[in-house]
């Protein structure tokens, strides 16, 4: 009983410290080590750390050239299901989307779209974002194919 309480306290304070760091990947070794610890304690695999937790369990790669038809479909879906909270070029209720693929893998983006509850509960990066933006990302009921189209839109020059 006591031990588990202590463990919770430790992991909570650890999580708090982490979110306090607020850096975006340019931290030094110390931070890496902390992230590693967090990863082990949250029980996430390397795949999950890089590609997120959700229904997409195999790495999705983008083609060398953008599939414009798919990107157009993704743009329409984005406008319908996402644009109430995300703008392409500016921070709104959630972060701007123009450079998201520089920060996250395509698979990660899909899992964030398809499993926002699980991500903000269990993934350290998504948790950080929730603390920063305060509004939890809603599940908009998209299919994997639709989430894939939105990623293609992010990869395109469409706005």
């Amino acid at each position: 009983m006591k031990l588990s309480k202590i463990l919770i306290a430790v992991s909570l304070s650890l999580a708090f410290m982490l979110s306090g760091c607020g850096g975006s990947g340019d931290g030094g070794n110390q931070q890496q080590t902390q992230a590693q610890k967090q990863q082990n304690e949250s029980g996430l695999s390397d795949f999950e750390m890089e590609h997120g937790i959700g229904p997409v369990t195999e790495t999705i790669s983008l083609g060398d050239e953008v599939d414009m038809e798919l990107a157009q479909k993704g743009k329409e879906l984005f406008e319908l299901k996402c644009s109430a909270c995300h703008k392409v070029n500016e921070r709104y209720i959630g972060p701007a989307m123009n450079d998201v693929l520089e920060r996250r893998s395509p698979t990660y983006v899909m899992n964030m779209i398809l499993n926002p509850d699980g991500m903000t509960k269990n993934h350290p990066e998504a948790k950080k974002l929730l603390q920063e933006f305060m509004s939890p990302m809603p599940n908009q009921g998209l299919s994997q194919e639709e989430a894939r189209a939105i990623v293609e839109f992010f990869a395109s020059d469409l706005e």
Partner: protein
Amino acid sequence: MKKQTHSHRFWMLPAVVLLSVTLFGCNGSNGNFSSNSDAAQKVYVAPGELDEFYGFMSGGYNGQLGVYGLPSGRHIFTVPVFSQAAVNGYGYSEETKAMLNTSHGFVPWGDAHHPELSQTNGETDGRWIFINENNTPRVARIGLDEFKTQEIIEIPNSAGNHASAFVTPNTEYVSAATRFSIPMDENMQGMDVSIDSYKDTFRGTISFIKVSDEGKMNIDFQILMPGFDYDLSHSGKGPSDGWAFFTSYNSEQAHTLLEINASKNDKDFIAAINWRKAAEYVKEGKGTMMPGKHVRNYIDHEEGGIAKSETIDEVRVLDPRELEGIVYFLPTPKSPHGVDVDPTGQYIIAGGKLSTVIPVHSFDKMINAIDSEDYEGEVMGIPVLKYDSILHGEVEDPGLGPLHTEFDGKGFAYTTAFISSEVVKWDIENTQVVDRIDTYYSPGHLMIPGGDSQKPDGKYLVALNKITKDRYLPTGPEMFHSAQLIDISGDKMQLLLDFPTEGEPHYAQGIKAEKVMERQKRFYKLEDNTHPYRATSEAQTRIERDGNEVHVYMTTIRSHFAPDNIEGIKVGDKVYFHVTNLEQDWDVPHGFAIKGANNAELLIMPGETLTMTWEPQQVGVFPFYCTDFCSALHQEMQGYVRVSPENSDPEIKYGTGQ
């Protein structure tokens, strides 16, 4: 309460009533359990687990349909049907108010009585539930995919739709019959006549509502009946499929002090209707199209889920004096109330509320009597069969004031006794009472899931009591009605649970949860939103002025409105807030309310568009906000509307986050 050995003399009733009332007053008779923990275990649904059955209970004078989980007795939902519901704007919003249109104009309240699940092959199928409205005669169809009222049809040439809304075994028809007869001339027009001309001018009707494969209702035909009161109904099944049975009382044709004057005859009638034969007559073009103005309201799923009304002017009327073989009268003791057909379809059971026995008619004997024209006479051209020729048996000592019967599918019937406040279990074949259990107090209907179908789930019985008294913490003079859940899986009935029910549950229906769960909608897809005033993204939000009408195309998502700052509205404008909920997840409605609205809030389901009308009367800035706590930033989900003077010319401006 101890049972009295009752004499089969009706004059004893007042004494017993007095005794029952005295007993209610004392404390202590609470249904002593042999084992409380055993009962608790049977009704305990652990946190996170789900009930085994849905229970649908009419809300009676609240006009709605209550949804309960069984065996826990938890009240899990209320479907607004015949009454405006301020809780979500049903009957107030532009999309739903047409559901309450009638030939008498907008009627904001109704008296819901008998819910009945749709059936396929005599078994409940979980598609729809129908329910009747007694006061302004109507029948509603509720879709169990979304737990919403999808259609309401008015019953013409009727005055009090009580014997309704019972379905045939494949939901070919839903029944309706007038409780109160009224004077109607040969053209079915209301008459300006003295009420004491009752016997000459008052007539009744029994109606059959055809239900299409998609659920659309229309009144296929009406049968002209003698001017009695028509009370309850149930369809035949199995061998008796094709027939429907309706109780009548007031064969005395009294028009005043019915309490005494309609209780004189030893026997009234069950009307046996051969609906299949009547339907054949209709196909042949028989009967007459008569005036019968009625309104049908329906949700138009093709156009944004907006309720629409249509008026139908005529109805086909069949006269049993001209069309042979569609109606027969079965003499039945003492103002029968319920009429119930057992799962085999062979036995027709009447609850003669003033009778000391329960008569059980045999369908085979009824057919034989019809074939051999074994009549004791006729009433207004309708043959009356001989009681002794059609009787299977009489249940002796069934309790006082038998009203309604349901079945367990194992050969037993369960009848409520209102006056002696008990449920009596009896063997259908030999009509012997085998068990009895007290209820608290005075049960009307009772319900066994599937208990009026061909396939009952004979595990639980719910007694729907009319009187509550000391069963709950007192809440002043008015109390919720009490229901009792009784285990009927063994030889002896066992009382498991008391639970309160809202309004007055007359009848109820129950169904295995999985039959309904599998067809649940969790949200409406934005892509499928066909509402003409939808805004399915923030980019589509806007304000359009047309004279003094202003249309605000608004969206909601956790946790902001777009637009949330609105200027350019004037006193005297009629403002329509068309609010589309952009959420696409289960159980994330947003609410919309604005200060001073002479209206109810909107509660907008994910993907849905609903419209509130607001006519500002004062200059100023008026806040609006989300009424349903939606996220950690719910308190931030607000906006302002600036209202300028009537004679000003303000520019329309709107936005969010600018």
